């Protein structure tokens, strides 16, 4: 056995007890990384996996078709979905385009691990994740988010459902993005049945023409 060839010299040995402070002192002159949450809220990275959102088409109909694929994809069993039939709604109203809609939609945020598999599973891009990470609450029940909590708010010009689909279209036109806003017929339909609807005025200003019925490639 030989001795350590790099044995520190006497000066080095003398300064050794304070050498560790070098790191500390150096950091005193570097920018602060501590975030002053909750007083300052720092935006997340754009693809951060936060709270879920159920999206809408530009005419205000929901994208969710109640297929339950998200519930099936969920490794934590956090999602519960029950589908319903649009045909069961009165007077030709639709919650979503096509045959089915999500009647019950719950995500249990005590179980959710924010893996995003549900987002990958969603066939209509109805379910996406927002950057909202503030998910805490005083009760266990309150952490089960219902459909009302998850639905995207109506953007300006969207018409609150349920209301009929854009005339002369089927779900495929919606999927292809040919629906760009509510039509006058939809606005009239809602005005007749729910004259006090808060989204009516903005939607009435934003009406567009229905896409050309022969425009599809079917």
């Amino acid at each position, binding site marked *: 056995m030989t001795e350590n060839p790099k044995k520190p010299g006497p000066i080095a040995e003398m300064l050794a007890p304070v050498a560790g402070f070098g790191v500390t002192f150096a950091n005193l002159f570097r920018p602060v990384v501590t975030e002053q949450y909750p007083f300052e809220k720092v935006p997340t990275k754009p693809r951060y996996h936060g709270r879920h959102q159920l999206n809408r088409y530009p005419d205000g109909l929901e994208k969710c078709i*109640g*297929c339950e*694929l998200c519930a099936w994809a969920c490794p934590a069993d956090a999602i519960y979905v029950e*589908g319903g039939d649009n*045909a069961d709604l009165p007077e030709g109203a639709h919650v979503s385009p096509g*045959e089915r809609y999500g009647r019950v939609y719950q995500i249990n945020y005590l179980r959710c691990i924010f893996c995003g598999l549900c987002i990958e599973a969603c*066939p209509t891009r109805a379910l996406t994740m927002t950057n909202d990470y503030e998910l805490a609450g005083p009760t266990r029940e309150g952490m089960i988010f219902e459909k009302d909590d998850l639905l995207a708010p109506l953007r300006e010009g969207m018409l609150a459902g349920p209301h009929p689909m854009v005339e002369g279209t089927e779900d495929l036109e919606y999927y292809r993005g040919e629906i760009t806003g509510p039509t006058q017929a939809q606005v009239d339909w809602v005005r007749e049945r729910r004259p006090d609807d808060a989204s009516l005025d903005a939607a009435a200003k934003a009406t567009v023409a229905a896409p050309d019925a022969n425009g599809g490639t079917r």
Partner: protein
Amino acid sequence: MTTTTDSQTPVAVDPNLVTVTIDGIETAVPKGTLIIRAAEEIGIAIPRFCDHPLLKPVGACRQCLVDVAMPDREGNVRPMPKPQPSCAMEVSPGMVVHTQKTSAVAAKAQHGVMELLLINHPLDCPTCDKGGECPLQNQALSDGRATSRFTDVKRTFAKPLKISTQILLDRERCILCQRCTRFSKEIAGDQFIDLQKRGASQQIGRFDEDVLGFAPLGDATVGPAAEDESGRAFASYWSGNTVQICPVGALTSAAYRFRSRPFDLVSTEAVAEHDANGSAIRIDHRRGTVMRRLAGDDPVVNEEWISDKDRFAFHWQTAPDRLTHPLVRDRAEDGTRGELRTASWAEALEVAATALAAARDAGGVGVLPGGRLTIEDAYAYGKLARTALGTNDIDHRARPASAEEESFLGHAVAGHGIDVTFGDLEKAPAVLLVGFEPEEEGGIVFLRLRKGTQAGRTRVWSLAPFATRGLERLDGTLVPTAPGLESEVVDALATGTDEPSLAALREALGAQGALVLVGERLASVPGSLSAVLRLTAATGARLAWIPRRIGERAGVEMGTLPGLLPGGRPVSDAAARVDIAAAWDVTELPTAPGRDTDGILAALAARELRGVVVGGVELGDLTDPVAARAALEAADVVVSLEVRASEVTDLADVVLPVAPPAEKSGSYLNWEGRVRAFRQALESHALPDHRVLDELARHLGTDLGARDGNVLRKEIDQLGAWDGERVAAPATEAVAPAAVAPGTAVLASWHLQLDAGRGQDGEPFLAGTARKAVARLSAATAEAAGVADGGVLRVSTGAGRIELPAVVTDMPDHVVWLPTNSPGSAVRAALGVLPGAVVQITAGTVTTTEEA
């Protein structure tokens, strides 16, 4: 069967066996076996889509290609130049087969076929109902290529194409295996879809004048199905089977479409409750709700098919009017009925027992259990009536019935065990149908008969007023018989006749294995069942009684008839009574002759009986619904055991809710006499009838020992069948038919399979496939009544009238046929008469508002 790889071992060679080598394994299989089956037997799975064991081979999908080599004349094994479809090729001696496991050629061929099938397949598995239980999905995953080389645009069709209100077709997903068209052609015989067009445009479609143009369908999933000229909805009673055998998601049912995913479902083997066959089914449920029912695989009963009624009609069990709590009705001092109110089990049972005990002591209590019970429930009803209530006034026949029928059942049905079976139906050389329409009233019996007739083994004759579409598909021979004249024709057959067609039939019935099938309708034709017994005695033909309801045979065997104790023991026989009294641990059983259903209701109206215990009985099914309602109104106490609110519960003093079939376990007895045990599918607090009856008897001071169904089954098995003298055969004289005056006709009627029955409630898609209610009459009768084909015919009696579109049919004159209980044609409630009665017929007008 001998399987060996050791050529040194001497093997006894059966001349009917063929030795082949598959993947190096030598096996001997019966002559005529398909290669794919021979491979299955030694555990080699060959992928396939079009192949189905119960359908004829077709080789349509080409997925099962294998390499085959066969010995030539010199005995040299020569490979065939191209791979062969193993599902369509029979084995031959010395054949050497290499499947995808040992042959690169076969494997490449199968990969190629799979790639071809997937070219136009939309791959929408995430939103497809079949995803998760899809043979195409499974085999694409196990045997297909990981990536597709197809870069073009896939073929698209408008979808779904509505074939009927229930069956929807997605042509994009279809791989043209033709299982559905082969099923409808070979098995059901009502071809409602077929292949159309050629080449890349080849597709399945329905017969339709628009079919080649495929006019766009607007609202694709709702609305009535198209109709042909006879007024029959263009649909099949068996169409649901095509959905089940479709190897992709091309055929879906409107009732189940998008409702759930197969991997979420919990499956329970069960037995269908809608007809007397007790078909094996699979109940798929999730979160305590039944989502769908599929055919089970029971080769001795229903093979792999069930009727659409058994498949789709299950919402009645969870209908909104389902009873969940016991209900009690308080009566005023003068006996007027108040409102039903919710009560506890303890209170309801106490009230019921007190009132029943008082009624029993004041005159007597009748029991009407209804015809849909399990063995256990029927036995408990019989025991309750004869011990706690001390009466023989019990009759499960909630339909027109007669004393003659009761003697017939006691003589020829009760205690006979399994006699004629489903297997006998397809092997019988001759089958005579009397008062029985197999497709409408027999469910799967029709498919078995058709299997025999299609194989050329069986000939069918039917005594009926006209040849139904079902009889035509059985290639059956009609013996035109006006209603009420069945006994006359059967007697002519029994005694021998010179009439050539009847003589031929009589000779055919003398053949070994010939069958006579009689339906419950004969109960309302006096003398007919006596004549049938004489016919079978004279010809040696075997006899089977096929009722419509699942609980009828159980009732006959378990003694819910006034003259019968369990096991076919006659009440009139002292030894039989002692036998049962000993088993039930009572000193004696009531000896007074009991009343049948009509007798019980008449005695209630006349206040000879003071109370009644009613099971699942619909008043509209009884001979005279109006009189039945009056009889229940007159009773001091009506105790109703029901699943759903009904006309009976509206009149009941105590309503005790019982479990529907999905929420209990038990055993049905089908028409063969075969025990069809089933387990409880859903978790439930609902009690089966026998549990409720046991509690009721306990409050009456009697122990039925009916708490546990298994204990009850043991008790029933220990009783066994009666080995003493049977009930004497009935010898009722036929009644001369009533004279037919001008402007009148004799009524013929039977139930359609899909009708206005409460078991089909809540099924709009199924109802859309029902046959439209029409009145049928001959051209001469129609002319005399002044009605054109398609015009409205009014059929009336003193009680009321029915107006239906008339369809001129080849049938005897002075006869009019109506469906018994279809929408717009409730014969018993509206006309108050039974088949064989004389009714007025006139031209009707739909616009009339005058009262009849």
